[in-house]
């Protein structure tokens, strides 16, 4: 690929989705954009590059942006965060929201929806304890294809075997051909919509718990900071943020700080001045 083409693709991707592509990842462009070129009846990436320069057609730019996302996810991914949700975050929120009896949860960058559905299953498994409570789970993703897949709630045999205990497969899914569809009860607990984390997030409303896992890793530091800061604006001062195993707020933003003794969980930092001086960490 021509250097100027690579630069054009990577600049465009960074602007539209935050994705940072280093030059050694040029092969990723080739492998993921060939299907897009074919769909648009073009021979290859050269032609695609010309089309972008000359037409800047939104639908084409979208297809390219979506094709470059990595949509890897699984039910109860990494398990531990979900155990922490059941054992730490949920009891804490139930205590704090006792008057309102409603809790809003956001799966930001939800991919094909497993994170939101895992939370819904976990909530249902709590049984009568949650009677009278209202839970709203919202999943958002940049990719329209992923949002459609999440809404349908249909997964391959391979996908339902990664992370989902067999008893829950039996309890919450029905078999459709060689695939598995999550039942209506669970599906109704989660709503999905397309949303770009780089845009104004305020229309999404406030969230008590935010899962923003395995998406910041694709961004550069300033973009990570910007996204974390706009997420912080959607959270009450007692809200809880989840990041992925390879992600942190440290050195990126002051709006969050790690939750004591809970790896991967972050709480909203009170504005400087309101906060007592902390002992030096690390």
């Amino acid at each position, binding site marked *: 690929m021509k250097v100027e083409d690579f630069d054009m693709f990577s600049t465009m991707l960074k602007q539209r989705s935050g994705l940072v592509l280093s030059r050694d990842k040029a092969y990723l462009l080739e492998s993921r954009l060939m299907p897009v070129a074919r769909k648009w009846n073009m021979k290859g990436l050269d032609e695609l590059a010309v089309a972008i320069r000359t037409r800047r057609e939104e639908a084409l730019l979208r297809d390219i942006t979506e094709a470059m996302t990595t949509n890897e996810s699984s039910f109860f991914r990494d*398990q531990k965060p979900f155990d922490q949700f059941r054992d730490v975050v949920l009891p804490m929120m139930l205590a704090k929201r006792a008057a309102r009896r409603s809790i809003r949860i956001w799966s930001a960058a939800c991919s094909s929806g497993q994170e939101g559905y895992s939370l819904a299953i976990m909530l249902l498994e709590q049984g009568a304890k949650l009677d009278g409570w209202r839970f709203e789970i919202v999943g958002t993703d940049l990719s329209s294809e992923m949002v459609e897949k999440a809404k349908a709630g249909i997964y391959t*045999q*391979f996908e339902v*075997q*990664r992370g989902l205990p*067999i*008893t829950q*497969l*039996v309890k919450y899914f029905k078999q459709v051909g060689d695939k598995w569809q999550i039942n209506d009860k669970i599906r109704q607990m989660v709503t999905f919509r397309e949303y770009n984390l780089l845009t104004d997030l305020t229309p999404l409303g406030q969230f008590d718990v935010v899962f923003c896992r395995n998406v910041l890793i694709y961004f550069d530091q300033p973009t990570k900071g910007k996204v974390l800061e706009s997420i912080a604006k959607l959270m009450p001062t007692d809200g809880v943020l989840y990041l992925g195993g390879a992600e942190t707020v440290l050195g990126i933003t002051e709006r969050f700080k790690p939750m004591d003794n809970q790896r991967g969980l972050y709480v909203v930092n009170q504005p400087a001045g309101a906060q007592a001086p902390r002992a030096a960490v690390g």
Partner: protein
Amino acid sequence: MKSCLVVDDSRVVRKVARKILEELHFACSEAEDGRQAMEACAREMPHAILLDWNMPVMTGIEFLRRLRKMSGGDAPKVVFCTTENDLAHIQEALSAGANEYIMKPFDSDIIQTKFAQVGLI
């Protein structure tokens, strides 16, 4: 080190499963059908059993029902691993006392998460 009995009539499947399980630090032994598995369990109960369904001599489900009636037979965690991939089979396996269920084809990720879910890892 925990022990795992791999029960499958296909030598290839046993070999693949064994390799994955050994990487997860299980001491593996093998059986080609339900009867051989019964004999192995009568000698010594393994911690885990990875169990195919369709096998000559004695099927996996028949073995499981007998195992659960043996003395000490409620101890092993039994994970089915079979091409039977419909709800009816899964339910039958669970009510016969299976702890987990893998639908073939499988990979090391699936074995690992399933074994973790039943507390073997």
